């Protein structure tokens, strides 16, 4: 099975390390992935506050492109790492499906651009693909440097599991936990897995947004986590990049490494720090997984 890859704007800038590490992980597991040609913004949150209809059209264009690029395959699976994009595209797909009025307008609009959408597109999050499409043993056997002794707080954020929790349990999601355990890490039990990190408020109304991030950081530390694993560029940015300001605002006890779950997986799969964009982290992970076995140079090229 081959997948198309929709980066979304953030994975090309603040979330670059997510893109780098996810591609590395997919390479390590030989999962073919092709970037969607000329993809456009998903019309998430901010855009949708101005025009929902156009937001849907933006998504629909991506669907049309995907189906075109996929040729006559009966389904185009788009892997969407960014939570906001994942939700935006998913929502558009559903609304186009459930509201014929919207569908008609959007179809007309696509036609105006010489495009068409045939409901063959499926929106998949990397967590979904890695856990539900692949044999865990195959992944386990690819682990060359188990994350032994690393305590991870798995943070899913909101928009991956809500409101469309179709690939994981909504209140207590498990896919990332599974992956982290497969990597040999220890998953700490914490109740804030899906609590909001503040979203774009951390930048706009900082005193409000950053407090939400603070709650997460502090609780993760309390539960004895060494690192918070995230699955969303905005969550990662909020939880990591504002730690200084958060410390100043709400007192310390809030400094903890925040990495993408794909970065942690990459480490276990023996990819190099550079390949995984570790150097882009503000708060260094400060953990080196011990080598499990002697492996060919191309594995531990770090």
């Amino acid at each position: 099975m081959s997948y198309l890859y929709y980066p979304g704007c953030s994975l090309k800038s603040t979330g670059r390390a997510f893109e780098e590490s996810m591609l590395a992980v997919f390479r390590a597991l030989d999962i073919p992935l092709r970037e969607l040609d000329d993809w456009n913004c998903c019309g998430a949150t901010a855009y949708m506050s101005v025009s929902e209809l156009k937001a849907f059209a933006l998504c629909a264009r991506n669907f049309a492109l995907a189906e075109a690029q996929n040729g006559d395959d009966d389904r185009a699976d788009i892997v969407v790492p960014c939570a906001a994009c994942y939700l935006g595209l998913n929502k558009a797909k559903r609304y186009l499906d459930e509201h014929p009025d919207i569908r008609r307008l959007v179809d007309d609009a696509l036609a105006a651009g010489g495009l068409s959408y045939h409901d063959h597109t499926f929106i998949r999050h990397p967590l979904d693909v890695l856990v539900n499409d692949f044999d865990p043993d195959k992944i386990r056997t690819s682990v060359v440097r188990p994350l032994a002794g690393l305590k991870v707080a798995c943070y899913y954020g909101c928009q991956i599991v809500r409101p469309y929790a179709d690939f994981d349990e909504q209140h207590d999601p498990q896919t990332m936990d599974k992956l982290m355990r497969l990597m040999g890490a220890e998953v700490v039990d914490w109740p804030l897995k899906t609590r909001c990190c503040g979203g774009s408020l951390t930048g706009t109304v900082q005193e409000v947004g950053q407090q939400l991030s603070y709650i997460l950081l502090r609780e993760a530390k309390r539960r004895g986590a060494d690192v918070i694993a995230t699955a969303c560029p905005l969550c990662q940015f909020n939880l990591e990049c504002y730690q200084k300001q958060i410390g100043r605002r709400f007192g310390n006890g809030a400094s903890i490494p925040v990495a993408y779950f794909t970065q942690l997986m990459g480490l276990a799969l023996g990819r190099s720090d550079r390949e995984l964009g570790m150097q882009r982290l503000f708060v260094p992970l400060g953990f080196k997984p011990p080598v499990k076995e002697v492996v060919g140079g191309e594995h531990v090229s770090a």
Partner: protein
Amino acid sequence: MEKWQGWRKMRYEADLDHDFASEIASIPGGEQLYSCIQCGTCSGMCPLSQHMDYTPRQLIAMIRAGLKGEVLSSYTTWLCASCYSCTVECPKEIKLTDIMYAAKRLAIREKVYPKRFPIPVLAEEFFRCVESHGRNSEIWVLLKLFLRTNPLKMFKMMGLGFKLWRTGRISPKRERIERRGELKAVLKALEKEHMVKGREELAGAGEVGS
């Protein structure tokens, strides 16, 4: 505590907008509005309600009562981070997040959102950027945002900006798609005056007040 400014809490029927509720209920996702039992689950779930001028539950009550002015000029909708906690837990399956969006769109269209409040401004800038380039370039959007709301903030953020630049997480380069003409054509087709004949009656779909 705000000091008393001689306001009156009395609401005369004549002051209320009795079509407001049905206007909101008519948007996709607004269907369930009328079944609200005011249980407050939404407000309790909401991680931001503590910072809102009206809790989500109150907002629903105000929409149904027709307090259009207060709803559209409130901070509540803009503080919604769309985490969908309310939507998934509402016992009556009211899609509050979608209703918040609907209110935001109305507020922007009618230019009644709180002035100099960064969130709606961000929304507008983000929208413009994507309209013309097909993608979002964070740095430019943020620049515009600070200029329009609080230029001083820019200096506050410089340290962070520098660090992001050093770690290669932002660049001044404009992100844009190849076939911008194609995208423009698509988006234009959704503006009423350019709509395919006979579609005007659908123009309401997915848009409040458009």
